[in-house]
């Protein structure tokens, strides 16, 4: 295939499937030829997954992880979007707060685990708080920059039609910044999904992160560890796919000009 060639319809699916199959084969034969007793083969993982489904654990754990992400992430979005709009709209406020934000932002959410356990105890709240933290900063920064980057032409046009400042924010600044805010939301969701696994390894006794660490600790069930990993990957992919749908809405698609 030359780089400019349009893939045929069958090629769209065939080649990615082929790459996946190749990876599975490599995995399978590596396990087989190395005679490892610890690392599971793809078939072991398949059986492990079936066992988890059969016991009803898998669906519950996925839902538990998703629930924690939903609470922490939505809480973050609810605070960070208005906060970011405010900071973008009032440069003086951003001048005061931005250095603090930029200092807190690079701290890995994992480093917050001990602190969040002191504050919220070992349990759901600690995990949700970590997800909240990890989502908050990307969203607040994207919203702030989104507002700053609104072309002055749009603001002038809005003012020209006699909009009050509140209406100007609601009808011009927010929709104009929305594509950038969505990018921030999408990045934050990806991070939240990474963090929930770590949080569940320490703070709680359900969810996919817990499944990973518990399968290892209680009997070295590496087939279940890898099954949980694959589930984490698939769920993350599903979340991202849903988000890409949002970017296709016509009222924001103008902001993603490279993929129209």
């Amino acid at each position, binding site marked *: 295939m030359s780089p400019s060639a349009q893939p045929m319809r069958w090629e769209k699916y065939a080649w990615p499937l082929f790459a996946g199959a190749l990876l599975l084969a490599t995995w399978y034969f590596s396990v087989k030829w190395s005679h490892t007793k610890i690392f599971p083969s793809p078939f072991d993982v398949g059986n492990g997954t079936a066992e988890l489904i059969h016991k009803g654990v898998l669906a519950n754990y996925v839902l538990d992880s998703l629930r924690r992400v939903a609470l922490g992430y939505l809480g973050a979005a609810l605070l960070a979007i208005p906060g970011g709009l405010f900071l973008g709209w009032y440069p003086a406020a951003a001048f005061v707060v931005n250095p603090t934000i930029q200092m807190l932002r690079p701290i890995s959410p994992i480093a917050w685990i001990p602190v969040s356990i002191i504050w919220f105890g070992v349990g759901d709240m600690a995990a949700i708080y970590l997800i909240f933290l990890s989502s908050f900063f990307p969203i607040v920064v994207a919203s702030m920059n989104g507002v700053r980057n609104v*072309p002055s*032409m*749009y603001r*002038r*046009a809005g*003012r*020209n*039609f*006699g*909009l009050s400042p509140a*209406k100007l924010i609601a*009808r*011009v600044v927010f*929709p*104009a910044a*929305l594509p950038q805010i969505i990018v921030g939301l999408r990045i934050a969701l990806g991070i939240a999904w990474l963090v929930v696994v770590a949080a569940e390894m320490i703070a709680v006794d359900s969810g996919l992160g817990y499944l990973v660490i518990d399968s290892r600790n209680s009997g070295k069930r590496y087939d279940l560890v890898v099954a949980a990993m694959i589930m984490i990957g698939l769920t993350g992919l599903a979340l991202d796919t849903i988000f890409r749908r949002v970017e296709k809405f*016509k*009222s*924001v*698609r*103008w*902001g993603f*000009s490279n993929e*129209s």
Partner: protein
Amino acid sequence: MSVVQTIAAQRGTERNGKRTTKLRTEGLTMVFKGDGADVRVLEDIHLEVSEGEFVCVLGPSGCGKSTLLNIAAGFLPPTHGQVWIDGEAVHGPDPRRIFVFQERGVFPWLTVEGNIGFGLFKLSKADRAGRIAHYIKLVGLQGFEQSYPQELSGGMKQRLEVARALAVNPDMLFLDEPFGALDSITRLIMRRELLRIWEAERKTIMFVTHDIEEAVQLADRVVVMSARPAKIQRIVEIDIPHPRDISSNRYLDLRDGIFEQIGLAHKV
């Protein structure tokens, strides 16, 4: 009333001295503070625009004619001087006077209908729908009501912006090189469209351009600006009735006069 008659009527009132002043600038000077040196952009601009008049402000790129328009629209406060519209001092933008931007001034997150209805938030739903339908028809965007700007051509976007401006029924329009980004054929069509709309709606128009032909084709009067700091060099009255024959001697005389004024020999 045809344009020819209208102009004749205007001439009449002019002779009777009744033609009212719409906009007046008094000693407008604009200095932008730069790093180190200040930049003088406008120098002592005195200009009067009459009710219903079509005035083109013509000058080289970067001379400050857009700044003049932004001050007149109330977006920028002048360093010295004052703008008066209908006898009131201008202190900010006003929905009675709408600014049409160079390009991309339409809101990409709204449909054609949403854009035209943008300034109509004080009207009832039924009135708003009626107004939107009227202006969609006026600028010939029927069938594109639900389209987003990214699905429109450059000329259609510019017509949409003009429709959005007209929908709030302003009595004055400021147009800042509105056709500058269009190809030359579309530009000619848009000029004719603008004149048709102007004839239908009778707004006072202040139109900034760097295109001499465009100015002479459109305006009642052409205000020729110098390079920065911009001063008014000359005001040329274009006394040719619409539709204008752009190969007539009078047209060519006026055009070449402005070419000379700007200091360009009219030869390529």
